[in-house]
């Protein structure tokens, strides 16, 4: 059986936290690391299993759970205990030929927090983890995971002006970081398929794959894993189900993003989030994504209700596509700007400056 030592923990922590080995070593509480590793070893011995990792997934799950619990308790890398502990547990499994399928990750987070708080014992966690273990196999490609990581990495090394959508009515509405990722991923998927632009399906797959943002939380709450979504879309494509709605004459109305803008406006938001893109799928000209969601039990009503539960925002009284454009029109914007000018003028007067004098002097 391969076990972990302190050096392993340092390498793992460095990789997880993005630190150079020396910096990771500086953060190490050596006594805590030693105590955690000794406790894990002792706990396994007490489990009366000579070699748990050779006893099938039950033993492997227990070994990982015991190690994770010990690292959560002793905190050899203060501040980042959960990430380091989970990464170490996964590495222990991999070194001994096992891999864990923990998607969707929400349940795993609950288990980790239960272990950290003592509400779950290592045996409880092992009982949850073991059925999710299988013999390790290297991923066929890095594509799936890199699709998720690439946009954030690119943004980190090459921050660009914030992306968003500008319309004559709303002005500029920026994407949230998560929504930006979805847009990038949807474009990449469309490029891969040779499409001119991403449609509803590409946006849905991107929403499911990112795992970040409100939409991802909503899909998880509705029990939709990325795999389930992808499988449903593939199944519908295989059956060649045509869109239920006839294609509109205006291709602009086929796109998802105008619908997302409408949802953002209807919710009174000055940004476009993943939840707006998700809702936009239900009113895009191509209804394939909407039908895929509905067939998985996530119709528009369920999605809206879950978004409201996740965000605490009850949402618009009526769906965006039923609303006019008046509420955030130019008149409103002009009124807002006038109020702002008046406020700034008052502020200047409070400091003995008459607004407009500077302009007259410089003229």
């Amino acid at each position, binding site marked *: 059986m391969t076990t972990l030592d302190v050096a392993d923990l340092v390498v793992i922590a460095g990789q997880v936290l993005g630190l150079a080995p020396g910096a990771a070593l500086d953060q190490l509480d050596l006594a805590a690391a030693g105590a955690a590793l000794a406790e894990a070893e002792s706990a396994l011995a007490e489990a009366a299993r000579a070699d748990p990792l050779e006893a099938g997934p039950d033993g492997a799950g227990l070994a990982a759970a015991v190690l994770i619990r010990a690292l959560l308790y002793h905190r050899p890398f203060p*501040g980042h205990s959960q990430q380091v502990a989970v*990464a170490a547990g*996964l590495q222990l499994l991999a070194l001994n030929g096992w891999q864990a399928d923990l*998607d969707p*990750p929400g349940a795993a987070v609950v288990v980790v927090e239960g272990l950290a708080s003592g509400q779950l014992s290592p045996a409880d966690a092992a009982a949850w983890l073991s059925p999710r273990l299988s013999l390790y196999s290297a991923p066929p490609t890095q594509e799936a995971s890199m699709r998720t990581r690439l946009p954030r990495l690119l943004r980190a090394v090459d921050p660009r002006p914030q992306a968003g959508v500008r319309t004559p009515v709303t002005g500029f509405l920026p994407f949230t970081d998560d929504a930006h990722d979805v847009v990038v991923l949807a474009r990449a998927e469309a490029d891969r398929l040779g499409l001119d632009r991403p449609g509803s399906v590409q946006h849905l797959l991107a929403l499911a794959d990112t795992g970040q943002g409100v939409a991802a939380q909503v899909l998880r709450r509705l029990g939709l894993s990325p795999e389930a979504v992808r499988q449903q879309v593939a199944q519908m494509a295989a059956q060649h189900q045509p869109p239920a709605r006839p294609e509109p004459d205006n291709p602009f109305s086929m796109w998802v993003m105008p619908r997302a803008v409408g949802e953002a406006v209807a919710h009174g938001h000055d940004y476009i989030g993943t939840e707006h893109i998700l809702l936009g799928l239900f009113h895009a000209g191509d209804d394939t994504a909407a039908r895929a969601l509905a067939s998985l039990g996530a119709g528009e009503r369920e999605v809206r209700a879950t978004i409201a539960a996740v965000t605490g925002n009850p949402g618009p009284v009526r769906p965006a596509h039923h609303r006019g454009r008046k509420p955030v029109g130019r008149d409103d914007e002009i009124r807002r700007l006038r109020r702002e000018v008046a406020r700034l003028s008052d502020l200047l007067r409070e400091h003995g400056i008459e607004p407009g004098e500077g302009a007259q002097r410089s003229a």
Partner: protein
Amino acid sequence: MTESTSQHSTRTKNMVLRLDPALAERLAAVAEVEGRSVSDVAREAIAALVEARRKDQRFRRLLEDNLARHQRLLDLLRDDQP
């Protein structure tokens, strides 16, 4: 073996190391010969081990695969509460 010592650096702290007796003796011998603390020698030894582990291609490949597979989970995990 349990040994208490102190680390001489900008962040001085007490450490408790549980070491194999033979290893502890070797560490103590090295420390005495070189006129350094046992913890300094231990830290240097760990740094050497870390460097060796970083060059272990199987270890690194498995680790990178794992982190990629579980990136979403790791992103969701919380930092420790102060």
